[in-house]
């Protein structure tokens, strides 16, 4: 038994070393600058560097818009599937799993091609204005569209797990018997019971959007993750400092989610 315990602590020790050293080293890297000694300049510089505020704000706006759109699309559909359209279920499941088969870089290659149709074929039609509008650098709607697609598999799983735990038809029937209208039944009876699943889905989407780099970079926009890479060329300390901070924020969010969602979080991915 003692031998077994020794083995277990050895495994935990090695794992701890591998997973904690890069984090610790990142912090050391940002505060212990060769030739300058200990300094927290990297962290104070973050806020004053050009583009920090605007790129972070853009990322947060994109995240909020993505969460709103994905929930508005998915929640009514998933609830309706439980209520009375079981034959549509496999369709929705397949549609929501398809993005898993297309790697983000292949997806963005397709988006780039579609966006080129605008100037090439549609320049005389009103559709062209739409193509221009969704690529507005102040708020690129095209990124929201892409992120919603990329979030579908995770949101589907989170909502499916939440819906499995409650009996939607009975809830709705009870609410309707008490005189509630359809929207009332949905908003006041079903949604409160889905709180955990909704939070779960929102946080997963938030983490996805905040960390997303591939699509935004190749489409030429500059949300937070792209901005970090762009400043890294000139200021290594600064970019690592920003990474450490964005990491802490993401972890905090995911830990909050773990607190809300309990163990169901571990099955929400994979």
């Amino acid at each position, binding site marked *: 038994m003692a031998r077994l315990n020794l083995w277990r602590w050895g495994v935990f020790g090695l794992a701890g070393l591998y997973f904690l*050293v890069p984090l610790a080293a990142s912090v050391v890297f940002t505060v212990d600058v060769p030739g300058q000694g200990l300094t927290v300049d990297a962290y104070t510089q973050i806020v004053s560097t050009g583009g920090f505020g605007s790129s972070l704000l853009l990322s947060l706006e994109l995240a909020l818009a993505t969460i709103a759109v994905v929930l508005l699309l998915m929640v009514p559909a998933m609830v309706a599937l439980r209520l009375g359209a079981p034959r*549509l279920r496999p369709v929705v499941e397949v549609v929501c799993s398809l993005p898993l088969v297309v790697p983000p870089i292949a997806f963005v290659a397709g988006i780039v091609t579609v966006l080129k149709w605008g100037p090439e074929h549609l320049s005389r039609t009103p559709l062209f204005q739409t193509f221009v509008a969704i690529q507005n650098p102040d708020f690129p709607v095209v990124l929201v569209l892409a992120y919603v697609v990329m979030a579908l598999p995770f949101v589907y799983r989170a909502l499916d797990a939440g819906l499995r735990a409650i009996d939607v038809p009975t809830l709705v029937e009870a609410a309707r018997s008490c005189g509630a209208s359809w929207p009332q039944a949905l908003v006041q009876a079903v949604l409160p019971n889905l709180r955990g699943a909704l939070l779960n889905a929102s946080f997963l989407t938030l983490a996805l959007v905040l960390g997303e780099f591939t699509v935004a970079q190749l489409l030429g926009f500059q949300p937070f993750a792209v901005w970090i890479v762009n400043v890294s060329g000139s200021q290594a300390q600064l970019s690592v400092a920003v990474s450490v901070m964005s990491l802490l924020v993401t972890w905090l969010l995911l830990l909050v989610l773990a607190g809300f969602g309990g163990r169901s979080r571990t099955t929400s991915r994979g």
Partner: protein
Amino acid sequence: MTATLPRVDTAPAAAVKRRRRSLGWVAVVPLLAFTAVAFGLPAWAVLDGAFTDKGTGAYTTANLTASLQGAYLTALVGSVKLSAVSAALATLLGLPLAQAVVTSRHRALREAVLTASGVLANFGGVPLAFAFVATLGNAGVLTRHLDLTDKGWDLYSFWGLVVVYLYFLIPLMVLTITPALEGLRVQWREAAQNNGATTAQYWLHVALPVLLPTLLGGFVLLFGSAFAAYATAAAIVGSSVPLITLQIADALSGNVLVGQENVALALSLDMVLVAGLVMAVYLPLQRRSARWLA
């Protein structure tokens, strides 16, 4: 549940049912319409472009042929090799870690490791890349203090990337394999011991065969995850390690040759095919392993 509700006649019930069905359509159609536009159009563009000649617009397989030759082939093979090696190592390293977690009697420790795994498995991309640059890069903390460069260490290489990828692949493996390990019954081990089996024999003849579908499923899932990774590699190595994701990005942004966009689409199609193959292997394996967990 309908039995508890007194019904006067069946007509309203049928009406309710019909209403529900139409409600289902009304609620699902926006979702389907959205994916048809936001996902279907790009997917069609990749498929169409991969088979179209950039100059003449005629259908051709030249792009696909080009995507499987020269530097592109090297990149595809490089990606497959990197993903396979990282996924295999993560499978081998994740198993003992998950086993240590499952057999631990400290509940708090288990929860902590599983929560951390959930966080780390989602931790890829740019911050991960910079954490490793700060640790093991040319001017990294460990590199400087341990003189690793003199000892032949190079983060911006194949093995450097493997070390970085393991950082999110091992936790993903722990998450995947933990339910299966929890499904191993104590009775099986006791039965094996009562029949005189050693620990090694128990693992070889009982535990591993039961775990095999889950392990293989986990391996292909990790493979797919590593294969699709772009941000981490782009932020660390630029293009010093040939990877298909980096090649697509280069071709898309016209860094290499003008007019290679359709080859980039063919490369994307190659990636989708590989990813599709991964899912085709993964899903049946997952269903198979679910049998033991019931």
